[in-house]
């Protein structure tokens, strides 16, 4: 016991702390190194880790992730043809090599370990677990066959283990996508893009095969509101509308007088929207080439609200019933919308609803209001040791830059409280919590295990001419990790 204590002092305490500790005697000895736990390994989590490690010389950062592999939405949300966004993992991987960073994968906080248990083992816990739930679509027919949520559909082509058994049927001609955000456009693009352009990406081989056999020729994007309320970006829209094989159709009447006026505004905060709608207008006026058989169509149906999903037979989706809406008011950025009683039918063979995400409640202790964790600059209200960052704190909106910037704010909040928290309590972080997790019969994946799985995926991808071929089952991930460990043990024995 004494040897351990001595080891702790000499390896972890600076000289000045050594002096303080020695003068109080061993009975008050605790680990003065701050231990911080980050829940979630996506951009928000890694952003906070980077800030903490850079600005505090002693902090130990432990990152917990629900599935065996890291990176969250960078791996499972960002689409396969957006490899440039995935460059972010290079910086995160660099962070992970720090001696004061540890990764614990395959641990579900809320299920395998409770939040109170984490809070007692760590000086501070930072929640960065994103938005796990989807906004629900409460209309009849949502359980029909070939109706998917974006989480399911995107998870399917991105190799999320939860959605590999999805029966995605692309034998029909039309797809209806409910929503006009970037996720909706990602889904549209996956359905319309020539599959040759996806062959080298990290899309799963099985999703690629299904897309190669697809008969989908028309994709309809359905939005409830007007052009100025479209949640997507000009870039995303142009990636689909700009495809050579795609003709885009937009109704002229959605460019009302109020929209024309809004397009002339000089307000910088509205620039994104103005550029998007100006592009949309340009695309709507382009001459369409209908002659080629390979030409596919993208239809933008704004000011329409879906009210029912209908089937003809076999419980397979066949039609989306829409109600047309009207936009009123002079300010196209803040109009009023009213439903008319004009019904429109949209025959289709597959529906993907991309209407946003919501936060999951992983613990009753966390103050949730309107699906957001109540916090100030990342510090959870009425809590001294609980912090939050990214989509789980302020809602499921924003791109990489938003999470990165958010992590700077939360990181700063943690840092300004950390030394006080570390002196208030003695705790040992992973030394306290990991034995409990292992006692429950769970297998934890380390960063090294991730690198083993990573190499496996890249190697397998190389054989197929792809950036990587993802492992799509958690069991297989754990198996590969174990094989890696035993290979290493065998090599070191020799």
């Amino acid at each position, binding site marked *: 016991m004494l040897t351990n204590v001595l080891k702790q002092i000499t390896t972890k305490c600076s000289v000045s702390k050594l002096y303080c500790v020695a003068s109080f005697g061993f009975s008050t000895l605790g680990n003065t190194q701050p231990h911080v736990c980050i829940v979630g390994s996506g*951009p928000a989590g890694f*952003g906070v880790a*980077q*800030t903490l490690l*850079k600005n505090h010389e002693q902090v130990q950062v432990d990152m917990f992730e629900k599935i065996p592999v890291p990176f969250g939405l960078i791996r499972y949300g960002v689409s396969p043809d*957006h*490899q*440039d*966004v995935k*460059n*972010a993992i*290079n*910086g995160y*991987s*660099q962070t992970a090599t720090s001696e004061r960073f540890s990764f614990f994968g395959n641990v579900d906080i809320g299920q395998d370990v409770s939040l109170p248990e984490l809070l007692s083992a760590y000086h501070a816990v930072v929640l960065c677990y994103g938005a796990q739930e989807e906004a629900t679509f409460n209309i009849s027919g949502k359980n029909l066959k070939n109706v998917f949520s974006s989480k399911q559909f995107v998870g399917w082509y991105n190799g999320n283990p939860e959605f590999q058994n999805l029966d995605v049927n692309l034998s029909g001609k039309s797809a209806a996508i409910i929503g006009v955000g970037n996720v909706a456009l990602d889904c549209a693009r996956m359905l319309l893009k020539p599959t040759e352009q996806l062959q080298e990406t990290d899309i799963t081989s099985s999703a690629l095969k299904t897309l190669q056999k697809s008969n989908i020729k028309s994709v309809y994007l359905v939005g409830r509101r007007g052009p100025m309320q479209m*949640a997507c*970006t*000009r*870039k995303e829209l*142009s990636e689909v509308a700009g495809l050579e094989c795609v003709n885009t159709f937009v109704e002229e009447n959605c460019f009302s007088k109020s929209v024309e006026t809004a397009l002339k505004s000089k307000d*910088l*905060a509205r*620039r*994104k929207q103005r*550029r998007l709608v100006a592009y949309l207008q340009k695309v709507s006026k382009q001459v369409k080439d209908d002659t080629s058989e390979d030409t596919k169509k993208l239809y933008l149906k704004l000011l329409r609200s879906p009210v029912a999903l209908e089937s003809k037979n076999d419980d397979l989706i066949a039609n989306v019933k829409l109600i047309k809406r009207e936009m009123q008011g002079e300010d196209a950025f803040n109009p009023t919308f009213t439903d008319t009683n004009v019904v429109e039918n949209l025959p289709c063979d597959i529906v993907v609803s991309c209407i946003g995400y919501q936060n999951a409640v992983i613990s009753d202790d966390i103050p949730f209001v309107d699906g957001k964790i109540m916090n100030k600059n990342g510090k959870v209200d009425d809590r001294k040791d609980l912090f939050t960052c990214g989509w789980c704190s302020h809602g499921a*909106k*924003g*791109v*990489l*830059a*938003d999470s*990165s*910037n*958010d*992590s*700077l*704010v939360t*990181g700063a909040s943690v840092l300004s409280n950390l030394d006080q928290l570390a002196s208030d309590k003695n705790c040992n972080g992973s030394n306290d919590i990991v034995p409990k997790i292992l006692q429950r019969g769970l297998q934890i994946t380390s960063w090294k295990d991730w690198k083993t799985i990573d190499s496996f995926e890249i190697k397998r991808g190389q054989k197929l001419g792809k950036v990587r071929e993802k492992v799509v089952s958690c069991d297989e991930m754990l198996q590969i990790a174990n094989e890696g460990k035993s290979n290493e043990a065998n090599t070191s024995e020799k």
Partner: protein
Amino acid sequence: MLSMANFGKSIVSCLSSLESTHLQALKLATRGLRYNYFKLHCPKLKNRIVTSPMRRFQTAPLLHNDKITINIVDRNRKTHTVQANVDDTILDVVIDNQLDFESYGVCEGTVACSTCHVIFNQEVYDTLEEPLMDEMDMLDLACGLTETSRLGCQVHITKEMEGMTVKLPEEITDARDL
């Protein structure tokens, strides 16, 4: 047969006679070779260089271009006065000078984020070439966007920028209505 010294001299004189655009193209084309050179010979830079097929920015070039001095004000309002190679991007300058700004240049210069966002003064901003569509798209999403904002990975240093000051945006949390 040329001696090594003469060979080296003729390469240098050949390269220095190239126009900056051609030099830029040559730099981009030899990026991979130069990365590996620096990985071996510059231990300080070792940790910053991660090989990735998608990287577009570059570390300090093998051959020295003209250097100027510029000022970069970080998020804590601290001014860093640094040397910058003409033709390098602002992101290159931040990395080469090991300024180590957090969450800066996350996508590594591939115009897939807006974390390398910098703000120029009006005078310098007006001399810059118009941003391309890609950059405009990403700038749209930048936090603290101003009329003189640009992405650091897309703006190249020129001699005329001697002594200029660029700022990282102060605003971190975004007030935009998405």
